[in-house]
């Protein structure tokens, strides 16, 4: 019994460290984005305490960029809340996709764990669950692996947005170093991991076209919602057709 507990504790540590290692390369994209966001927030008048308060409590970069872009003094609270919901509405789909995989977790663990769910941790945990599941491991979802990833992202995000807030005006344009390309690079590698077949990825292409078109035609963050809905509709229609 005692050994069993020890072994499981050891396995948990190993899984947690596996998450930490998997997340490290991605901080290369997260850190410069955090610096940029912090610098922009400082320019809009947020204090050195308000920057980590926002990024630490919200922990959703896309909505923070959108909110800072719209920030006035005093801020339009309802506008910011609505935009935050719009940009983060993808979390609803993400949480729904995750639900069957974390059904075995008690609610007192699942609810706090979901606070840390972001695009990267979610996609990486989902890919990992599939690989572990295919290797016959039950449950496929590894909570310590997910938490390892999340800790790296959370700490990196809060530290670098704070640094950006502190050193904002001194910092040059990070685009000069091409660091803004890190985000699409990360997302594309994650997509490669989720790829199953050309047919299975057809909805992605529909999403890409719908989101690109919406971005060109409609101001604001609607393109995320439009792209996701178009792709999901395509998946729904395709699922009804014979293979």
């Amino acid at each position, binding site marked *: 019994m005692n050994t069993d507990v020890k072994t499981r504790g050891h396995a948990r540590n190993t899984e947690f460290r596996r998450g930490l290692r998997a997340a490290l*390369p*991605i901080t*290369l994209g997260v850190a410069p984005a955090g610096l940029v966001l912090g610098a922009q927030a400082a320019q809009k008048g*947020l204090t050195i305490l*308000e920057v980590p*308060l926002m990024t630490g*409590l*919200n922990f959703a970069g896309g909505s*923070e960029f959108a*909110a800072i872009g719209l920030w006035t003094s*005093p*801020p339009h*609270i309802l506008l*910011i*809340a609505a935009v*935050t*919901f719009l940009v*983060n509405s*993808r*979390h*609803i*789909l993400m*949480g*729904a*996709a*995750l*639900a069957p995989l974390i059904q075995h977790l008690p609610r007192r663990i*699942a*609810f706090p764990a*979901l*606070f840390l*769910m972001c*695009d990267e941790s979610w996609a990486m945990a*989902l890919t990992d669950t599939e690989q572990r599941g295919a290797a016959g491991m039950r449950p496929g979802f590894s909570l310590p692996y997910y938490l390892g990833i999340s800790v790296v992202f959370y700490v990196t995000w809060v530290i670098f947005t704070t640094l950006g807030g502190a050193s904002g005006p001194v910092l040059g344009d990070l685009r000069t*170093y*091409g660091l*803004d*390309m*890190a985000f*699409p*690079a*990360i*997302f594309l*590698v994650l*997509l*490669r991991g*989720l790829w199953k077949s050309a047919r*299975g*990825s057809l909805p992605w292409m529909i999403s*890409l076209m719908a*989101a*690109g078109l919406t*971005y060109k035609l409609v101001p604001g963050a609607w*393109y*995320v919602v439009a*792209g996701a809905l*178009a792709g999901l509709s395509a*998946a*729904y229609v395709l*699922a009804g057709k014979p293979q």
Partner: protein
Amino acid sequence: MTLLAILLMAAVTYTTRIIGYAGLRNRDLSPRALAVMEAAPGCVLISVIAPRFVSNDPADLIALAVTVSAAIRLPMLPTVLIGAGTAALGRHLLG
């Protein structure tokens, strides 16, 4: 006001994180619903980066094309470095 805006943002964001899970937990999903769920991750990820694909900047489009071909073959870190490197180089030469 700033504090209120930050707290409201946090509440809205946490709500989006839990309602998909809380609303769909312990439910049997149809094969069709599962197919939609399966497509969801890719659809959302690609929608978030879609603006890059319709950029007007040739340097950004070239860098994106290089990044896509790197992402197909290489692990995370080299892909990120190649993406950032080609974007910086392209902007230096074309910008």
